[in-house]
């Protein structure tokens, strides 16, 4: 299966601190890949590098075969990559609907068309009842859902999810997992997800990449990775398995 997202030898330093070092992995088209690792491993930095918020010091990032390292985030989004933020950034003064419309406008100039797209996405994420509520007044789980809805509305080829399950109750987590499975199987949406909630990672990922101190220490099928001694060592004390 062709790789939709290729990360090759990417490194990034911040004032002498190596956040990400020689990281390489692929996300095949139509698959869900999990990116895990202890806090501070460099996962969000990877996302920021892929999404264009930061520029890698070294390495190449390709989306659908075209190089995107050095592109601006909005250019990368138009090319088909959407991401959510770990610390959600809703458009606080706008309603849920308006928030999602901004995302939908990525693919259409018509606000009316965007409204229709947004209506569908809002339903998928279960936010239908809060359409006209201001984002500032939403609970955290709803804000997370909004974050995902907005990103989905941009009609991406690949969706980067940054710890979307954190803070959700198990039933909510299951709902999200089901949603992503559905989008993946029905629409072929490729997903790269940073997650600590192992329940979700194991349920969704076909492949897992493990990051530790900015380097990839393991990659492969979930069963294999979760038994890898190196991985167990870095997670020692974490009772998530």
């Amino acid at each position: 299966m062709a790789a939709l997202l290729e990360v090759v030898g990417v490194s990034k330093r911040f004032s002498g601190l190596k956040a990400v070092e020689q990281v390489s992995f692929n996300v095949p088209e139509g698959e869900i890949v999990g990116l895990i690792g202890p806090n501070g491993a460099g996962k969000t930095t990877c996302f920021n590098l892929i999404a264009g918020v930061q520029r890698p010091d070294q390495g190449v990032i390709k989306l659908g075969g075209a190089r995107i390292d050095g592109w601006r985030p909005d250019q990368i989004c138009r090319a088909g990559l959407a991401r959510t933020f770990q610390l959600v950034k809703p458009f606080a003064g706008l309603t849920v609907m308006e928030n999602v419309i901004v995302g939908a406008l990525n693919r259409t100039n018509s606000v009316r068309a965007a409204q229709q797209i947004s209506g569908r996405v809002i339903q998928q994420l279960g936010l239908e009842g809060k359409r006209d509520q201001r984002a500032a007044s939403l609970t955290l789980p709803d804000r997370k859902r909004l974050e995902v809805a907005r990103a989905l509305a941009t009609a991406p080829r690949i969706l980067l999810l940054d710890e979307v399950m954190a803070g959700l109750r198990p039933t909510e987590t299951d709902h999200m997992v089901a949603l992503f499975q559905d989008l993946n199987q029905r629409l072929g949406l490729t997903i790269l997800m940073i997650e600590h909630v192992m329940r979700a990672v194991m349920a969704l990922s076909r492949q897992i990449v493990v990051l530790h101190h900015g380097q990839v220490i393991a990659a492969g099928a979930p069963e294999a990775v979760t038994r890898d001694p190196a991985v167990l060592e870095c997670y020692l004390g974490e009772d998530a398995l």
Partner: protein
Amino acid sequence: MRERLLEGVPRQGVILLSALLAVLLLVPAVASDYLLTVGILILYFAYVGQAWNLMMGYAGQLSLGHALYVGLGAYAAAALYVHFGVTPWIGLWAGMAIAAAAGGGIGYLAFRFGVAGVYFAILTIAFAEFARLGFDHWPWVGGSAGLFLPVANFANNDLVNLRGSPTMFYYVMLTMTAAAFVLCHALLRSRAGYYWLAIRESPEAAQALGVDLFRYRMYVVVLSAAMTSLGGVVFAFYYNNLFPEQVFHISRSIELILAPIIGGIGTLFGPLIGAFLLTTLAEALGEAVRAVGIDVPGVKQVFYGVCLLLVVMFLPDGVWPPLAKALKLDRRSADRSSER
């Protein structure tokens, strides 16, 4: 922008708006000359306030040097008229082009170099001051001695050259203010409008959703500048004299942002309400003070300052949002305000 203009506006809103328009149209028929000039002032501040509101209320960029664009529009049209007899209807295009270029220039410098927030505001102040000092030393526009337009007979209303009675100016200003209102209403529901609001709320999130920050910030700055300059054209032909010291002065810039702030940043009605409240109350205060016998310069401005202070402290979103709520006119899709 093929959406129907009145879609989403609640019924009472349409009725009230029509009533308001009717009242405004009839004012010259019943008002004295003095009240007419007050009306012109209100409309002027509503208009330039709306233009400033585009940048601040919609795109979140604080400009404290907007008098620059008023001045450029004013001087361009006036100078062309005085030196070449060019009608202001053509002169205004020169004014808009120059103001747009200036806005574009400032925007380019600011956005390319990441100058934002307070620093951006200071940059805008600096450019307005630059213009003030520059025009002071420019003989072709009269320098610090000023540029004077030939005062014409009030009886003849010459619309082509904008020479005429207060009534004529009133209708000109009313048309402009109404047009600005309609334009902003349409813009708010357009793709650009959504993108601007997104940039105001969270530039990083906006970027992650495909919004080209630089491009949309530039759009709003250039549009705001061009719109403001038209107000300057009317200013020049109404007052018939221009002095750099006054036209570009920072107090002008502060003055024109008072109405939208007090009325409500980011709302359509804010600038209008703000202009109305501020101007009428200030005039009333002036009258009262004169009646008591103290006629000292500065009273009006202290009043403005106190109003601004009170609004900033207790009504941070301006007067319009709570008013709209009370009148049940605050349908979200018609009028978005930034409540934080």
